[in-house]
């Protein structure tokens, strides 16, 4: 993957060096080389990036989110809190991180496919603004001279979040498919209820072709279905851990990037237990399922990395859980 940076000579100079024919030939040769199947991941740009949640990274096979894959987020087994379990919150936190991370070239938006028309943007918009601001500051001081978020080269107005409202299930499946095929999208978040194995495979191939990450929040009963997702994470709210957050401060990122406690309101954070319950074509099997605890700072969409006060840092609980 070729990154555009200030180290590349400007086109005008190349025009002076050689003629148009040579340039076209050179361009064609580079295109051909780039289109060859990659034998190694070195030099081809990052294929695995951090999810933004260190706990989740530890749970994932490649210690991060592999680009061009799907990730399923299962809601809680407890039906009474399924829609309030926090699976969407975590999926959005990962999506926002993918949108703003420096590991990927270009500024690509996050697109939500919300058939139920119930997503409420004011809850998440501050995450995007904070991350974008932080990234812009880094960019401006970066020696690499990467393009700013304003995307001067393209002249495109910057918007980091789009919402698609499909009217029916067919439109929803089509929209997710189309979005996953587009390399101009950082992540697609959807809430598909019923999707066949064929449809999921189609999405997986679409994501693979573009490098876009699909984050699908699904009901817990989807666990019984085979999947083409790279990872399947079940999210359970953790009341026990949450109660210990009573005195844990909400954190904000200061200029130095160190998190410090600022206030003690419990609504600013939320504790979850994340369980990996199978991946690509992993059917229900009696295999140990690792789980981790994760405390998310709801003001920034980042995970609490260090804890102050009475709570200990979250670590892998080592829970062995056999699927029934």
């Amino acid at each position, binding site marked *: 993957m070729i990154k555009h940076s200030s180290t590349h000579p400007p086109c005008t100079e190349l025009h002076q060096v050689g003629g148009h024919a040579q340039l076209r030939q050179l361009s064609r040769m580079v295109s051909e080389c*780039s289109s060859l199947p990659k034998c190694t991941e070195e030099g081809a740009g990052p294929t695995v990036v951090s999810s933004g949640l260190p706990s989740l990274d530890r749970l994932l096979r490649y210690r991060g989110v592999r680009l061009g894959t799907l990730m399923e987020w299962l809601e809680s087994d407890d039906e009474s809190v399924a*829609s309030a379990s926090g699976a*969407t919150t975590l999926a959005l936190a990962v999506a926002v991180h993918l949108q703003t991370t420096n590991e990927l070239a270009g500024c690509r938006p996050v697109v939500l496919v919300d058939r139920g028309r119930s997503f409420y943007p004011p809850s998440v918009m501050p995450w995007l603004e904070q991350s974008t601001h932080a990234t812009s500051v880094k960019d401006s001081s970066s020696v690499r001279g990467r393009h700013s978020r304003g995307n001067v080269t393209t002249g495109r107005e910057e918007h980091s979040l789009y919402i698609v409202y499909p009217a029916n299930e067919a439109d929803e499946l089509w929209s997710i498919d189309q979005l996953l095929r587009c*390399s101009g*999208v950082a992540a697609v978040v959807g809430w598909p209820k019923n999707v066949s194995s064929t449809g999921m495979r189609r999405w997986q191939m679409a994501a693979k072709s573009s490098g876009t990450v699909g984050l699908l929040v699904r009901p817990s009963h989807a666990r019984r279905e085979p999947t083409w997702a790279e990872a399947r994470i079940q999210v359970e709210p953790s009341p026990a851990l949450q109660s210990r957050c009573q005195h844990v401060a909400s954190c904000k990122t200061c200029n130095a990037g160190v998190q410090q406690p600022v206030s003690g309101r419990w609504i600013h954070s939320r*504790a979850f237990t994340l369980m990996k319950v199978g991946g690509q074509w992993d059917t229900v099997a009696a295999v140990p399922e690792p789980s981790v605890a994760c405390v998310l700072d709801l003001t920034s969409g980042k995970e609490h990395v260090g804890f102050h006060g009475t709570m200990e840092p979250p670590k892998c609980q080592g829970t062995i859980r056999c699927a029934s």
Partner: protein
Amino acid sequence: MPGNNTLRIMTISLPRWPVQRQILQQPGFREHPIFVCRQNARGVLSVVSWAWVMPPTNRKRSQPVIQPGFSLSEALAVLASVYGEWASRVARIIPEDSIGDVRVLETLGRWCHRFSPLVAIGPEAIRGADRGQSKRRGVCSARSLQVDISDTARFFGGESSLVRTVVWTLAARGIHARAAIADTPVASWAAALCAAQITAKSQHLLNGLQKLPRSIPRRSTLLKKGAIRGSHHGHWLDRQQRWVLVPPGRQRQSLKSLPLKSLQLPVNVIDSLAEVGVDSIGQLLRLPRVSLQERFGSIVPMQVSRFLGDVSDPITPLQGSEFLAASHSFEMPVLGRDMESTYFRTLIEKLVRRCLRPLVNANRGVSSLQVRLDANEGHGPTVIEVGLYKPTVQVEHLVDLVMLRLERTRLPREIADVSMEVMSAGTLPYRQQTLFHGPTQSDPSRFEVLLNRLVSRLGSGAVVEPRLLADIQPEAAWVAAPVVGVIGLSKSRRSAQLLGSSKARFSKPVVGPSRPIFLLPSPRLLDVPSLSADGLPARFRWEGQFHVVTRSRGPERIETAWWRGPTVRRDYYIFETDRGGRFWMFRGLRKQSWFLHGTYG
């Protein structure tokens, strides 16, 4: 009949356009008093336009006098004084949407191409330009269209016939308009705006030797023909005079009695002239232009010259009126089900190429496109409009979008004619050329292509950008701005308009962890069987399951201003249950009931 070299401009004035537009789009509004309002910097809503098409019929009352610029509370009080308090309760209060108004006006302008190829949007009529209304200035009360009919009137049987046709045809479509024809755009606009002030006698004089219609159509006639679907007594638009014809070269004599506001002069100039007793056009025309220039600068002499036709004053045609159109007529009608065939795709491609050819040379691209499939006689045409996120000249992409729309459209059984028209065009976005294009490199244009595809299949309102608004009521704290929707307006202008409404307010948007991930479409009443000592729910039932509250945070009182209509008074709490679920609930302060409004999904 005017000579061939005489410029003749017809102005179609659309009084109370913001309200007319709302009623056109939502006919149910006819039964309610409608107030289109704008919020000023202090947060007070002022009336931009209002109407009540079908007021109560049991008793005869005088029409309430509500002027644009009234504060909403003032207007509701006047309404209540005439019809009773219930009338103010059933009133519909709609925020001003000037972009939507312009969009529909442009559509109407394109419809007017049947009268002339040159159609322009005329200047706004600013209410408050009258003397003594300095506090209520700046409210647009009417919009207008201007049509150059210099050489086209004869095709409609003359100017008199044409102007009548325009007014009647619009009335049949539910649009109330006044029209005037004169030599210059300014004179024509003035006559149309003040048509109601021109008496039947002067109308006769104005028409000179032209054949005058015997009588203005009576209201009963219009009702019988279905042209007016209005109130049973009185009318929400005065109908003293619907059209005016100013004979060629007679605007000085004919329009001398009109007020100065019809000359499109600044309000301060009108006030200054009124102080010295100059109130009408005739009085102004008697003053020497040199002294007017010394006193008021060049604006007054310029407007006088434009009024009299002393200077050239061309109208600026609507975008998309350059006739970038192409059509194809079949020798024999083809079946609608064949529209998805390869042949039809080739035909569409051919039409697109024909439309694009002039644009490519001018470095412009298509922003919106209209495809019209005409069936046999007796069936209406099927019209498909394709809007784009950014102007483009990619033929394949445009053909894909059209075919995508056709797949979702119910086509007529037989199609006799296919025509395509570029509705709006824009300058192609500048994109820096890159030397190499790797296959995995993210390209912004791919995302734009994707947006166009999504919009084509799902509709313009289905792909949106969320934008925060500084509104305390959760339901109104954000707005979904369609990425492709307002055709003919640039995206930056749309964004500015949307954000402008929020800048006018005081508070910042409420965002962050105190807001839920999912908001229910409407609050749901909860069953709360037990309360704690502090009056908060200890348990509640939702979706058939009981939840035990372990902790809560609140209240966050949200109370909307009384002038915004039905008052919202709520105390919001965040509840966490024993199973870890987090809910956003409120207690209504009127009935003390508990509602679920959102979940932290």
